[in-house]
């Protein structure tokens, strides 16, 4: 058990940090301006291509698929340096972390060869099509149907909470391929091109004022018959694996982002004098401790995943960080005071720390509400009996 980095790791960190600094002082400086908006898709696509060209696209993957076989420590370093540079989350997170890991585990060789190199090169962006209006917490209640029509799947239905769909080239979709099936049976995991007439995107405005999510209407959308991961009807198992990957190494990036947010808040508290308020001091110290615990838990989770022995520490991770971040959002407002309520411009558009107060309400909902997380922990990891269905 050891936290220190090897000289090779230190060298990797130095090389990466200097590359990032050069890019972010130059062509990609806008990426870390406070008012940078993630709707600026062209810049984000260019940035992912630049990462790919520099060999930083998907460092964990085998070299043959565009990666560089990075060790766990190097992946940790990548996540840390990314956040330390002031970057927002990886724009193609869904493609790289979720679809990438899913294909590595369950994809055919053809699918890996077709879809993974463009991810590493930063040329194809992905969206996730799991949730539906009546399949949120109860994801197995999916109604979207897909039927094989000659050499293509044809999809009809509605997806919701799809992030950044306008920027996506492809979407992986959970759809019902066995007519009349119910629950987790009869679902398949399909890869569907976004840019076709049968895919209609309607943005959803959030309480932050942003339009980050979308509703997707699938109206006869088509994809090649080969674009199914796993066998027809095995979609549930594939999708559950995908959701597990969601709580993988990317949470370390999250943790590092939170580190930056906390550092900003500490600086603000010192600047406005509230760091001397004993109650806020106490809460800032508790936030620091909570974040440190989160880091400890992430590192343990990753080490165990890396050894192939994932444990309860991974199962509880999202519950922990979601709750931490929500409390942090409240602390932000207490430290900044009423000034934080005033928008920086003429639109309802909050940035930086104050936005966290609003945005973090989603942290206990997305990717499985806290209630679902607790069910999963209790039933899958603690062996408690399931509840009767209605």
């Amino acid at each position, binding site marked *: 058990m050891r936290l220190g980095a090897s000289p090779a790791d230190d060298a990797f960190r130095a090389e990466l940090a200097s590359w990032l600094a050069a890019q972010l002082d130059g062509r990609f400086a806008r990426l870390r301006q406070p008012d940078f908006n993630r709707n600026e898709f062209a810049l984000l696509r260019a940035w992912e291509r630049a990462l790919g060209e520099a060999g930083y696209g998907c460092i964990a993957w085998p070299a043959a698929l565009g990666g560089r076989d990075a060790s766990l420590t190097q992946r940790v370093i990548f996540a840390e340096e990314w956040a330390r540079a002031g970057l927002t989350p990886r724009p193609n997170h869904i493609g790289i972390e979720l679809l990438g890991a899913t294909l590595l585990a369950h994809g055919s060789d053809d699918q890996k060869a077709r879809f993974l190199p463009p991810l590493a090169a930063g040329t194809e962006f992905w969206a996730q099509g799991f949730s539906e209006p009546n399949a949120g917490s109860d994801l197995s209640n999916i109604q979207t149907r897909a039927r094989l029509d000659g050499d293509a799947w044809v999809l009809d239905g509605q997806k919701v909470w799809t992030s950044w769909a306008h920027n996506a080239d492809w979407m992986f979709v959970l759809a019902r391929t066995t007519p009349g099936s119910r629950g987790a049976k009869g679902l398949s995991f399909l890869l569907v091109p976004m840019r076709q007439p049968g895919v209609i995107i309607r943005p959803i*405005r959030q*309480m932050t004022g942003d339009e980050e999510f979308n509703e997707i209407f699938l109206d006869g959308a088509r994809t090649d018959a080969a674009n199914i991961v796993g066998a027809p009807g095995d979609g549930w198992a594939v999708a559950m694996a995908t959701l597990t990957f969601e709580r993988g190494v990317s949470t370390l990036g999250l943790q590092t982002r939170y580190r930056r947010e906390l550092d900003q808040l500490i600086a603000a508290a010192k600047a406005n004098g509230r760091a001397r308020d004993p109650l806020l001091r106490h809460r800032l110290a508790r936030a620091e401790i909570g974040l440190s615990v989160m880091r400890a838990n992430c590192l343990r989770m990753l080490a165990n995943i890396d050894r192939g022995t994932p444990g309860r520490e991974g199962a509880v991770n999202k519950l922990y960080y979601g709750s931490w971040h929500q409390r942090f959002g409240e602390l932000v407002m207490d430290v900044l005071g009423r000034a934080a309520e005033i*928008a920086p411009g003429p639109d309802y558009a909050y940035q930086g720390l104050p936005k966290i107060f609003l945005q973090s309400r989603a942290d206990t909902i997305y990717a499985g509400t806290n209630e679902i997380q607790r069910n999963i922990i209790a039933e899958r990891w603690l062996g408690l009996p399931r509840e009767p269905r209605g």
Partner: protein
Amino acid sequence: MDFAFTDEQQMLQDAARGFFARHAPPGAARARLTDAAGYDPATWRALVEMGWLGLDLPEAAGGLGLGLVEMAIILEQAGESLCPLPFLASAGLAARAVLATAEADRARQLLAPILSGEIIATLAGCGREGVALQLDATLRRDGGGFRLDGAAGFVPFGHVADMLFIAARDADDPSALCLLHLAPDAPGLTIDRPVQMDLLRPEAQLRFDAVAVPPAAVLGAGPGVAAALRRVIDRATILTTAEQVGGAQRCLDLSLDHARQRIAFGRPIGSFQAIKHRLADMAMQVETARSAAYYAACLAQEGDDRALAYAATMAKVHGSDAFSQCAGDTIQIHGGIGFTWEHDAHLLFKQAHSASRLFGSSDAACQRMADLMELA
């Protein structure tokens, strides 16, 4: 002792419930979000016609001679209906500030157009940070009159008020405050309404650049003004708690509806204890906050300054906790849909936040309670 509504209070509550059901049905708040005024003038006129503006003013001052309980009844229904109106600004703050500081004749004269609804008035009682009586405006002698410099923050309905009552520090006596009034077009006065997180609680930021103030516009000065204004703020704080109770009740009702109707895993989500028990906790917050708000109103009405301070402090802290918890829970119970702009959950969440900060934070209120408890 009889800690329940009188028949008259029950009738007033029924009237208020009916009023807001007619004028601010579910969904009406949407129109306010993009609205320069931030309130509906027709609803305001209707409320004026109900005669509620002078509910708690003495009859000698042109009011109905009722009390804080009656005022709280109105505010609770307004909060439940998400209906922004300059009622607290005009009747709960400005009118009381006049009554508390001006000579009787002058007060009657100033109050008449406020109570008749002819004008909207407000009180600028906070400084830039939005904390009551921590002022950033200073009044100093200037020739035969005065000049006002500095700023005031988070002035309720300051952007539409026809008359602004301003609390300011007295340059000649750093320990004293004074109250003066300005017209919105007074030279040197800048009134700005920035976009705020809670679009349903319009507040203005005021700047004073050498605003000339004639002696007649200065209502009160001297050592008693601070205490008088503190009483005004304390009463308004209790009324805000009543508004919070209404908001929390709306949260509970929305969440109950959703929990009964939304199906997951083959049954209404309200049958799962995770949701069901959260709703029970919300009900606990709503009911205890309601008890606290009316208890505080009675205490304040029947007691002395200390009782008022105690009541305001206790009501503020618990009302803020209750509404904030209920509003957060409402989003959580609704899931993704509760996070969208189209759903009312975020309006309530933001109302809960702004209400909890009105006149100062809950932490500051606890500090004040500790002082009242003489925890030296």
